[in-house]
C-alpha cells in the first residue's frame, strides 16, 4: 500500500510495516459510492436551482419587453422601419435568450 524503496533502516521497516498494517484496517471500506451519490445529488440540486433561476430570469425579461416585443414583431411583419427605442429591446432579448447559458457559467461543472 505504502510506496517505499527497500528501506535499510530497521526503524523505517518498522514504520512502513506499522503504517501498512494500520492502512489495512480501512482498505475494505468503500466510500466511493456514497461520494458519487452525494455528488450527483449536489449536481442535480445545482442544475435545478440554475434552471429555475434561468426560467425566472426569462419570465422577467419577457414581462419587461413584451410591449416592445409586440410592437417590434408588428413592425417587422409589416416591414416598417424600427425606432431607436425598439432597437433597444433587441439586446435585452438577446440577453434573455442567452440567460440559461450565462447562468451555467456561474458554475462550470453544470
Amino acid at each position, binding site marked *: 500500500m505504502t510506496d517505499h524503496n527497500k528501506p535499510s533502516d530497521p526503524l523505517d521497516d518498522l514504520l512502513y510495516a506499522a503504517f501498512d498494517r494500520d*492502512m489495512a484496517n480501512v482498505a475494505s471500506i468503500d466510500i466511493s459510492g456514497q461520494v458519487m451519490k452525494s455528488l450527483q445529488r449536489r449536481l442535480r440540486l445545482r442544475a435545478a436551482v440554475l434552471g429555475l433561476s434561468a426560467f425566472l430570469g426569462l419570465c422577467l425579461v419577457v414581462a419587461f419587453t413584451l410591449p416592445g416585443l409586440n410592437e417590434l414583431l408588428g413592425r417587422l411583419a409589416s416591414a416598417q422601419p424600427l425606432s431607436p427605442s425598439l432597437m433597444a429591446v433587441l439586446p435585452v432579448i438577446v440577453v434573455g435568450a442567452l440567460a440559461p447559458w450565462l447562468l451555467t457559467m456561474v458554475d*462550470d*461543472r453544470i
Partner: protein
Amino acid sequence: MEISDETLVRQAVTLKDVSAFEQLVHRHQVRMLHLQRRFVRDHALAEDLAQETFLRAWDKLDTFRGTGSFAAWLTRLGYNIFLQHRRKMSNATKAEQPYPDDAEGDANATTEAMATPGPHDELPDLPKLLAVLPEAEQLVLVLSYGQGLSVTEISDVLDVPSGTIKSQIHRAKEKIRAHFKIEAAA
C-alpha cells in the same frame, strides 16, 4: 496502461466527466480514509471528512495545476477539511483531540492507547509508535510514511519549510528509536 491521475483530472475538468472523477475517488479513498482516521478518533466522522474532502476536490478540481502530484494536492485539501472541523470543535464544549489512537470512538480506549507504551513491546502498532511524539511530529510521519509524500510535498501541504520537515522527521524517528530501543542502520 493505467490512466494517470493528471489525465483523469483533465477529463473531469474539461469534459465534466463524473466517471473520471469516480476513478480518482476509487484510487485515493483508502489513503484519504486513513489520513482522516489518524486525525480523528471517530470512524464514522473520518468517513464523513473523507467524503467531504472528495466533494470539495470536485469543486476545486480546476485549481489543480499539475505542478505536484494529485495525491499531495488531495492530502492538502483533506488536511484543511480536518483543520476546519477542529476549529468548529474547538468552539464546542469538548474539543476534538488530534491524533488519538485507533479506538472505536471510545474515550477509555483512547486514553489507554495514548498512554506511553513500554519500550520492549514487540512490533508496536501505529498508535503506540505515534503516542510518544508531539502532534507536529506525528503529522509529518503520517504524511511521509502513511501518505507517501516527499519532503517537498509535505512542505507544500503544511506550508512549512522543507528543512523544518526534515528535522521534524529526524527528531520523530530518534524519539521512537530511543523509546523502543531500536538500533540505527549500520
